[in-house]
């Protein structure tokens, strides 16, 4: 029995390690989502548009570029499971959540940037997603627009 355990030890240890890491990762993801919810609630409704012109009902006497970006990594375990998903196809929910978090974070940073300059709205908002990690799936979401006031 003991010898079996000793033999299985190199196999069990990484599993325990990965299990712990994935739990930490899931907890961090929840915390980040909660943090985003809180910051979005604190800002309330801030009008942003992807229209090129000042929308009806808004007046503007100045404009300036505002930006926000965020780089998020997926985590090794998610990458590992996602590689199985690509065999059978279908939606990769874990990646979807990561990118959505990155997008919300970038958008919030852009809004915070605009608000600190006294903006009333942001127009012509554009989102850009790029893979910056080469072989590693680190995704950057970059978000920019013109704040008006």
């Amino acid at each position, binding site marked *: 029995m003991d010898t079996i355990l000793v033999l299985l030890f190199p196999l069990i240890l990484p599993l325990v390690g990965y299990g712990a890491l994935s739990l930490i990762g899931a907890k*961090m993801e929840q915390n980040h989502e909660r943090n985003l919810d809180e910051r979005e609630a604190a800002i309330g409704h801030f009008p942003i548009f992807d229209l090129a012109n000042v929308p009806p009902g808004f007046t503007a006497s*100045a404009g300036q570029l505002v*930006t926000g970006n965020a780089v998020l*990594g997926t985590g090794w375990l998610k990458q590992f499971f996602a590689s199985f998903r690509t065999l059978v196809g279908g939606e990769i929910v874990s990646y979807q959540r990561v990118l959505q978090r990155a997008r919300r974070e970038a958008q919030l940073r852009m809004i915070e940037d605009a608000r600190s300059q006294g903006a009333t709205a942001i127009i012509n908002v554009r989102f850009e997603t*790029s893979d*910056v990690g080469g072989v590693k799936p*680190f995704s950057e979401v970059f978000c920019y627009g*013109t704040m008006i006031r």
Partner: protein
Amino acid sequence: MPWGVLPIHGSQLAKYGFRMLLVNTETIPGHTIVEAKGLVNGNTIRAKHLGRDIGAGLKNLVGGELTGYTELLNESRHEATQRMIAQAMSMQANAIVNVRFTTSAVAGGAAELYAYGTAVVVRPS
């Protein structure tokens, strides 16, 4: 750091309150475009710092935001923008409209940040 301020090339200009107006729309609210100077652009290719790369790799064990990369890309984008602004200044423009950004990964572990737009002369209307 606000966009449109030139800390290196324009330090003297910044002292006198010079600021290039940047927008990603075709017009600027409250301003009239009096002259279009032409296309201006700027780029930079950044390789990742080994230490940052290892740090990001460790962070990626659990996933989440890689702050080092977020900052690196932000700084690089500012640098590309400054090159674009320097070009616009040499054309005696005071604003750049329709600014676009692109990012692409080139040869393993390096990213190119590219900014372009149209240099124009504007006056408050």
